[in-house]
């Protein structure tokens, strides 16, 4: 495997798992709490964030030579805000039904610190291709966490899955998992519920990482023990 593709795999692994924006960096909580009440909204916002992050990483890495160090933060915010505005207008004009679902949350991507964090930590010091891949990987890392969080909140809060899917795909219908009589568990739909469920997800994430680390450790210990015998 070439060094370059190894490097790209590393970027993707960082975004999806090791430095996952939702579970490891815990950045971008504002949209996570606000819109993860159901899976369709969560994934829609996630996809919008991917687009914003890819565009902002691409623009910032391409322009990084001309951005003076002292004024980089205002310039980053300017670029991100401009791109999000353009994205918002484009959604409104060409994907109006999706625009109605995402509502006020697309402009909120501007204030999502994960976009600025990637601009500052990655795009400002890496090439255009790497930065674009980083934007995709970090965005998709956020999408799967948002999807899981949205699905759990929706399932616990209202007993449904995919509610609102008919606004995106008119011929699909939501699933009532527990039947129509499920009374619902309000807390899961409210912001505190988002904190609780995100906390559980982070605990699971840390448990998996701890177990992997333990396995890796014992495996390397075995190989050391096995070496003299061989």
């Amino acid at each position: 495997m070439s060094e370059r593709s190894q490097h790209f795999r590393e970027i993707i692994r960082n975004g999806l798992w090791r430095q996952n924006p939702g579970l490891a960096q815990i950045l971008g909580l504002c949209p996570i709490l606000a819109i993860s009440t159901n899976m369709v909204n969560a994934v829609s916002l996630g996809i919008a964030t991917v687009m914003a992050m890819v565009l902002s990483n691409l623009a910032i890495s391409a322009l990084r030579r001309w951005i003076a160090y002292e004024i980089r933060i205002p310039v980053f915010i300017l670029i991100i805000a401009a791109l999000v505005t353009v994205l918002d207008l484009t959604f409104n004009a060409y994907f109006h039904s999706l625009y109605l679902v995402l509502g006020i949350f697309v402009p909120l991507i501007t204030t999502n610190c994960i976009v600025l964090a990637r601009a500052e930590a990655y795009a400002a010091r890496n090439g255009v291709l790497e930065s674009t891949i980083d934007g995709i990987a970090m965005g998709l890392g956020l999408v799967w966490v948002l999807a899981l969080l949205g699905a759990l909140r929706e399932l616990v809060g209202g007993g449904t899955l995919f509610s609102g899917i008919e606004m995106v795909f008119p011929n699909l219908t939501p699933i009532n998992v527990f039947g129509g009589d499920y009374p619902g568990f309000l807390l899961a739909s409210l912001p505190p519920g988002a904190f609780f469920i995100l906390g559980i997800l982070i605990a699971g994430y840390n448990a998996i990482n701890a177990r992997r680390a333990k396995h890796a450790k014992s495996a390397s210990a075995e190989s050391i023990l096995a070496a003299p015998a061989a």
Partner: protein
Amino acid sequence: MTAPDPALLPSPSRTVLPPAMRRALVSAFSLLAFTLAFTFFMAFTYEMTRERIGKAAAEQKMRLIAETLPGLRYDNALLEDVLEVENGAGGRVGKIWRARNAGAPVALVLETFAPDGYGGRIDLIVSLDNAGRIGGVRVAAHHETPGLGDYIDPAKDRKKENLWISQFIGADAAAPARQWEVKKDGGSFDYRAGATVSARAVTRAVARAAIWANTHREALFAAPAGKRLKAGQEE
């Protein structure tokens, strides 16, 4: 800090700005350049999308209006047969569209709002047929809590076969005022547990609009299209 570049030091032959000020000026101009470039980019996108966005918004409004007139036949250009009403209190202007069939009055469609939703103002579209009954109600814009108070919007209502907003269909504007409340307040309209405020706000706003339109129905149908009226105290 590195030593200042000798080229930037003041020389006796020409006046040069001190390095710190020079850097500040360069930064300021580059920030200005970025601002101008990206403002131009946004303005360009705005111009390119403006027409389509206006069209999409008008279509959306027309769809909502049509949804408030189920089963009613009308043959006039609804969006053009319009009155504007100044609401005395808020200074807001609402529109009233008049549906007619072969010139005969069919229904009034009113733009109104509830100022007291849980998340602020709730914009509503209410229709009232010629018998003084509500044809339908739709929420045009709201900020109620997602998954909790947003059932007032049929697109977000989880009970698709029994939409909360549908209970207004056929409600009589001439009914006693105390019936125009949610059941919790002694009226006849349902609400969903945990989010009474949203339901109460919508119910009262629908009642205000329907009762007002019902008392002024003839005058509203008689007024020439495009006229601006004052609702004042009546609303």
